[in-house]
């Protein structure tokens, strides 16, 4: 950790007189800009303080006013110029109108070194806005880092404010949303700042699986600071204005001699397509916040609550005739699993998680008859929908989130198996694949599985099979549950024999259909694809009261 922090300092914080300048992060140097505005206003403040003419009430008003402008108008303008909103604008847009209840508006940092104790270096509320509010009427706790105050750097007080609302969120059982826009540690505070990070990390970990935690990265987030979003359930980013990295390009250059831009190193595109660190990227602040509101609607407030049910205009018994012809005749031909998902779920409304990463598996939230469900589906369109390292990890994390928060899981299976090759084996497909297996097996939420076509080999077992306590397992008439495809199987069973074609035909006749699984009760029914929505909705109704408890344990030991 220490190593990470020291690089964080060198990458983002340079001591520049009394302030931190973010040369590598911000295009506008605002060390100088910032000095002027607060100076005048705070000098006035200091006069009032010393003279003490003002009543307490007036002082309260004054402080509140000061808190509302954060680092001052010039810095607000600079923030806007960068295409970013201020911490308060973000909170206002995220929450229902007039629902925000702020806490700790009067908290100030306690640093007394490097002249920080001077009044002009104190900002009511410090560099973060915290409180609670409502999203579509539902309770949420939120913190929003204020880049206009010391570049949103994390002081002891800043951390303490965040910890306070996280503790409250835990006691009442409500989600926490973090809007991150921070240069890193408050270097003037030294270890106090590091302690602050650790306090937050601990709470992130304690809250994990208790209340949903969402991070929206809306500016820089570098060094040790990245681990808070990494510990939360979902990390969203804003394109072009947000970055997540352990060390910035300068340090990368000095250590590994690589030339890399911030965007390439830790921009939204990198993290949503290459690293899999972030779950979604949005065009800009406004889009991100509006989408976050939409996303929040899917989530229960805590692990004490069932998956939310929203008023639904889509009939639960709607038949979907288009599904009867969606799986192509030739089993080698691809189709788009998203077509199936969108046709089945309420109002074609599917919030995909990590749409551009490990695209051979599709995960995301939707609703069935108004109730939130988690959808997992192999994507035959990409790499035939095989399971590899990245898709296994992506799927596993999603399944575990759903299980933790009582969200039923619907799995669409069309999987030819695990991806072979040295890259995969050396990369540890065995232990990563095991994660998905572990997650499905461990999950006690309602699990409904639909085999649309291939369910081959070990991957069949993994994909929420009956054997892993699937509650309802359906097969479409096009399903083929087998150890492998006909060609491979025949080559092994009838090795060296002539008439391979005939043997292959026999194998297809015998196994390339849903019957072998159905006669053994491994699938509960073979259903007409058009009736899938209707059947899932009915099953979910019944499974709403499902109770299943895993044996007592301190915690399981998922193969990380």
């Amino acid at each position, binding site marked *: 950790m220490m190593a990470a922090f020291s690089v964080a300092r060198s990458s983002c914080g340079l001591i520049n007189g009394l302030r931190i300048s973010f040369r590598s992060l911000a295009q506008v140097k605002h060390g100088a800009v910032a000095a002027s505005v607060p100076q005048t206003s705070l000098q006035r403040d200091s006069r009032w303080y010393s003279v003490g003419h003002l009543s307490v009430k007036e002082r309260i008003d004054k402080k509140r006013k000061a808190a509302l402008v954060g680092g001052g108008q010039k810095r607000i303008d600079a923030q806007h110029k960068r295409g*970013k909103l201020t911490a308060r604008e973000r909170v206002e847009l995220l929450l229902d109108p007039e629902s925000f209840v702020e806490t700790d508006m009067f908290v100030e940092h306690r640093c007394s070194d490097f002249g920080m104790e001077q009044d002009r270096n104190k900002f009511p509320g410090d560099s973060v806005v915290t409180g609670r509010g409502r999203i*579509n009427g539902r309770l949420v706790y939120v913190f929003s880092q204020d880049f206009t105050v010391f570049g949103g750097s994390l002081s002891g007080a800043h951390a303490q404010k965040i910890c306070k609302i996280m503790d409250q969120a835990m006691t009442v059982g409500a989600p926490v949303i973090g809007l991150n826009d921070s240069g890193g540690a408050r270097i003037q505070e030294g270890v106090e700042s590091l302690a602050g990070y650790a306090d937050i990390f601990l709470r992130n970990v304690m809250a994990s699986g208790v209340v949903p935690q969402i991070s929206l990265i809306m500016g820089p987030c570098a060094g040790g600071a990245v681990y808070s979003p990494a510990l939360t359930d979902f990390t969203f980013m804003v394109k072009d204005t947000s970055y997540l990295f352990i060390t910035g390009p300068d340090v990368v250059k000095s250590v590994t001699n690589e030339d890399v831009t911030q965007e390439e190193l830790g921009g939204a595109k990198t993290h949503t397509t290459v690293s899999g660190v972030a779950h979604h990227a949005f065009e800009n602040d406004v889009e991100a916040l509006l989408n976050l509101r939409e996303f929040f609607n899917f989530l229960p407030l805590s692990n004490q609550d069932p998956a939310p049910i929203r008023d639904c*205009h889509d009939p639960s018994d709607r038949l979907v*005739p288009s599904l009867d012809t969606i799986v192509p005749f030739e089993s080698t031909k691809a189709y788009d699993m998203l077509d199936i998902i969108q046709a089945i779920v309420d109002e074609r409304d599917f919030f995909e998680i990590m749409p551009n990463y490990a695209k051979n598996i599709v995960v995301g939230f939707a609703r069935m008859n108004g109730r939130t469900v988690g959808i997992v589906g192999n994507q035959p369109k990409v790499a035939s929908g095989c399971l590899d390292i990245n898709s296994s990890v992506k799927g596993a994390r999603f399944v575990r989130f759903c299980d933790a928060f009582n969200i039923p899981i619907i799995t669409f299976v069309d999987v030819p198996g695990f991806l072979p090759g040295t890259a995969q084996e050396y990369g540890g497909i065995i232990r990563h694949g095991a994660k998905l297996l572990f997650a499905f097996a461990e999950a006690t939420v309602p699990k409904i599985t639909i085999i649309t076509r291939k369910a081959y080999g070990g991957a069949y077992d993994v994909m929420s099979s009956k054997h892993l306590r699937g509650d309802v397992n359906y097969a479409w008439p096009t399903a083929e549950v087998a150890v492998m495809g006909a060609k491979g199987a025949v080559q092994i069973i009838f090795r060296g024999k002539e008439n391979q074609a005939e043997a292959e035909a026999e194998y297809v006749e015998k196994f390339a259909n849903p019957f072998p699984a159905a006669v053994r009760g491994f699938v509960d029914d073979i259903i007409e694809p058009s009736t899938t929505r209707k059947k899932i909705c009915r099953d979910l109704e019944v499974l709403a009261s499902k109770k299943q408890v895993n044996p007592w344990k301190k915690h399981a030991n998922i193969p990380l």
Partner: protein
Amino acid sequence: MAAHGLSTSLSRLLFPVKYASLRPRCCALHSKAQYSTVYNPSEKTFDKILIANRGEIACRVIKTCKKMGIKTVAVHSDVDSSAVHAKMADEAVCVGPAPTSKSYLNMDAIMDAIRMTGAQAVHPGYGFLSENKEFAKRLAAEGVTFIGPDTHAIQAMGDKIESKLIAKAAKVNTIPGFDGVVKTAEEAVKIAQDIGYPVMIKASAGGGGKGMRIAWNDEETREGFRFSSQEAASSFGDDRLLIEKYIDNPRHIEIQVLADKHGNALWLNERECSIQRRNQKVVEEAPSTFLDPETRRAMGEQAVQLAKAVQYSSAGTVEFLVDSKKNFYFLEMNTRLQVEHPITECITGLDLVEQMIKVAKGYQLQHKQEDIPINGWAIESRVYAEDPYKSFGLPSIGRLSQYQEPLNLSNVRVDSGIQEGSDISIYYDPMISKLVTYGATRAEALAKMEDALDNYVVRGVTHNIPLLREIITHPRFISGDISTNFLPEVYPDGFKGHQLDVDSRRELLAAAAGLYVSAQLRSQKVLGNLRVSSTPVECSRWELCVELGEGRHAVEVTKAGNVYTVEVDGGKVEVSGEWNLASPLLPVTINGTDRMLQCLSRDASGRIVLQHLGTSFQVRVLSKLAAELNSYMPEKVPEDTSSILRSPMPGTMVAVSVKPGDTVAEGQEICVIEAMKMQNSLTASRQAKVKSVHCKPGETVGEGDLLVELE
């Protein structure tokens, strides 16, 4: 005006009833409006018919066969194995892979299918083998009845040159300047000069308007010759061409004829097919607003003369060009069932497929000429999977993710061969359906067409409903002032969608605001027992900002029940509706007027795509706060497209005329893409040097694929 007078006089003629009693009369007509198949069990025809076609026409034929108690056999390519026509038929036989030359044109496979299923007759539909004399001969050789005219008639009428000679001999008016076979470009130019420009060039063997090119000078004649001869060779294996005088501002009016094998022939009135793009029909109607009874009779009689001259039997169509002085000239005769036959069925009440089957079996026509009525008015819109914003329609492909025909409306007939989930592929004609509406008067039929188009849900492919709706509501079309040049004249700069006026713009903004507020309110409706109570925002007034195109409008919405009062641009609009957020259709009442809007998409950031008056518009609705904050958001720069040539449609690359390093002049051909049997030449938009070429002849390209980069 004349047209209008005609239509009213017609309706008076046909409905000598008072207006009050017109409505029940219309309902009675309704069943007749479609067509009525009179199944007479004693009149035995065939036990089993094979339909050598696909799509809507195959379905259309199967429907009548079912009514007549005839078993049906469908043929299909492998990609069509779950197509509607294959499922509708009693038996379905796969005749080969997707390309038509290997399946629907594969005579050997189709003959095998006939033998295998024991079909006694074959209905060829239109296109494919419908006018192929070879096919008819092979059927005859095996004792299978071809439901269509004799080989002799197919041959005589299939050849554009021979058909004109026969027509001339039968005293049918023919186009002046008619000439013969052309072998070289120079010969073509000479002929063209003799006739006098403009001239029309097309493949002799080609049917319909496909491959027809018009030349106004020598250069264009050479180009037309090149294209037409190529197309002729590749599509018909017959490179003969036809050049003739091109009639400016003509109307395309055709006469449906029906003849039996006993020398009887009838004319079933006309169809007006002047609305065309690139010489393919888009909107057709029957009758025509232009014809007076005398002209109609003259045309009908000449058509029958021609039919008799070639001993025609079965249904056929004699196409005429009609000039502004009501002179008409024989164009060609189509020896098959036409695409647009439903409108004739609507106004005559006859089932043409039934008539064809009966005639093929050898029965005499039961109707006399005086029995053929003109009952009311019928309009047909061809709904295509194509982008009307690109030269009035370039093919588009995709999967019909949602599809709903407006069959809930009365007096609407939809002939289609697809359903929700069907694929529109590059292999076949991109027609989605033929939408036919019917009314006692033209105005009624047009109003119904408007309704039907608004209620038609097509998602997943780009379609031409915006264009269709604009055509049928255009003042020139309504007044009947049309010609085959209608589209280029009305939209000289290309079709741009419906142009909103102040009122319709306001309607759209109000509907979008209403939908947005409904969705917002619904988001607060969380059901069930909640551990932490929910506190929805108590609000009955919303301040919004609605963006449409370049315009931004401050909008205020107040709600009372399902009625939203929307203040926009200083005007008040009342919008009410069910606001069903799951339905693709969005029926609303706007200031007392019922409108059927469609919601194409709606996302979390306030973007709503609404189809209003046929055209889809992207609207963005934001709260006042979000709109204010949105002004800080940077504009993202889109890709510079002036130096890139992307494929405007999916298809096959036929020729690439440039290589890297070449300098191309503005308008110079860069490559040719063949899609849906059409060759499309892509040209340079400016003079430039070719930087790179990303395509090869023979390759399949998708829409939007990068073809060539210019420097």
